[in-house]
């Protein structure tokens, strides 16, 4: 008889799809094995012991059996369910966004523990932060940095000179700021106001504990969202599904993101 090789891991459930009668294939992101797919048998049955533990975006401890094609989930126990994400549609949408970004930017079996902890901390932030959009932007800037797409925000990507905070543009193609002198030669670059520029640098260089105190004005929030969207689109050569979904939410419901949920005061400078 073959010995079954079992291993333990922490994981975050990035996505899942249904197969067979009551099974699901899970896409898990783990600290030591990176992204991996595993089959969870019977989890669609409402009586399944495992199903609640392998919900999307749950931080879970799993026991997996190495399989020929797919590893098989044998045990699952929730470490942190991030309940705040589940009770609020906007937070849910941002969680989809960070999971989709992780899934699209990483390949199977190429571990990057820092990306796992960033993902976990971001889900925690999304479930409680006053402004979940800020946590999403923080995640984007940091994850891209870890994966070799760190936005260049200190010197002009065209001429190499140190940039002042004012009057720059951001080139998604070159992955960084273009100074006012070089900007006319870079039509693809989007204008980057001083405020958004300072916030971007802050996201890149400070920890979340500091970043979460930043209060974004709606205009800056919108500018940052468009800028990161353009940069991610350039890297992936397409938009994320969550982007159009968020757009749809805003169209239908009007103010899903109520200004009252965003703290006032604090500064990014």
């Amino acid at each position, binding site marked *: 008889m073959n010995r079954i090789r079992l291993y333990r891991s922490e994981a975050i459930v990035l*996505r899942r*799809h*249904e*197969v*067979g*009668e009551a099974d699901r294939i899970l896409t898990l992101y783990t600290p030591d094995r990176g992204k991996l797919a595993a089959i969870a048998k019977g989890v669609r049955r*409402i*009586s399944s*012991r495992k199903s*609640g*533990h392998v*919900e*999307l*975006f*749950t931080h879970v401890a799993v026991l997996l059996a190495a399989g020929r094609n797919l590893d098989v989930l044998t045990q699952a126990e*929730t470490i942190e*369910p991030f*309940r705040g994400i*589940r*009770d*609020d*549609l906007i937070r*849910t*949408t941002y969680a*989809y*966004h960070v*999971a*989709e970004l992780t*899934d699209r930017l990483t390949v199977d079996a190429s571990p990057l523990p820092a990306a796992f902890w960033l993902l976990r901390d971001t889900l925690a932030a999304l479930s409680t932060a006053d402004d979940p959009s800020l946590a999403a932007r923080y995640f984007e800037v940091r994850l891209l940095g870890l994966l070799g797409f760190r936005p260049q925000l200190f010197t002009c990507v065209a001429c190499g000179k140190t940039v002042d905070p004012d009057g720059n543009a951001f080139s998604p193609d070159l992955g960084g700021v273009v100074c006012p002198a070089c900007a006319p030669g870079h039509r693809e670059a989007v204008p980057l106001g001083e405020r958004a520029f300072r916030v971007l640098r802050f996201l890149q260089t400070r920890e979340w504990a500091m970043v979460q105190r930043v209060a974004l004005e709606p205009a800056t929030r919108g500018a940052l969202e468009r800028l990161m969207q353009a940069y991610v689109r350039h890297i992936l050569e397409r938009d994320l*599904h*969550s982007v*159009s*979904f968020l757009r*749809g*939410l805003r169209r*239908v*419901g*009007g103010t*899903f993101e109520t200004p009252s949920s965003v703290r006032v005061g604090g500064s990014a400078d």
Partner: protein
Amino acid sequence: MTASLPGPVARLIDELGRLPGIGPKTASRLAFYLLRAPNNQASALADALRALSEGLVYCRQCFNIAEHDPCAICADAARDHGTICVVEEPLDVIALERTREYRGLYHVLHGAISPVDGIGPADLRIDELVARLRRAPVRELILATNPSLEGDATAMYIERAIRASGGEPRITRLARGLPVGGDIEYADQVTLARAVKGRSELG
């Protein structure tokens, strides 16, 4: 592997193999079973399949699959037309009907919101639900989407969309608690927390 088989058998194996949960091996086994089965069994299956594409319509009120439009449930005057239960799939209607607890009408979404898979509100029958409620307001709307993240997101979205359109029905969600036959020690935190929140009076 189907290349050396007679055309009709190969075609059947191909078609069966496209069904969810059926691999090439199972497809071959089913095809050869049908080949050897008494003659009327294969033709009964063929008739049933043909009736599926020719004899079925979507009810234009509730979007359940039916033999007639409106469906038997929508057309039943004895049912409570002041309550609509919103479900993801036609199979959920069957499951709820089996309980004999529910006497209202349904609305079938045909899926749940799942941004990662590119399934948004526009892919579901949500606009139709909003329009239906405008046409014929109800007392209560029961959101019976699955107790999953997708089901919850869909329910929250529907609630927002209805309120945004000025709809004022009472909106409820199926009670979420512990599965019958389960052990509390195996329940996840979210299920257990919801079960505590939704606890009910004894007796």
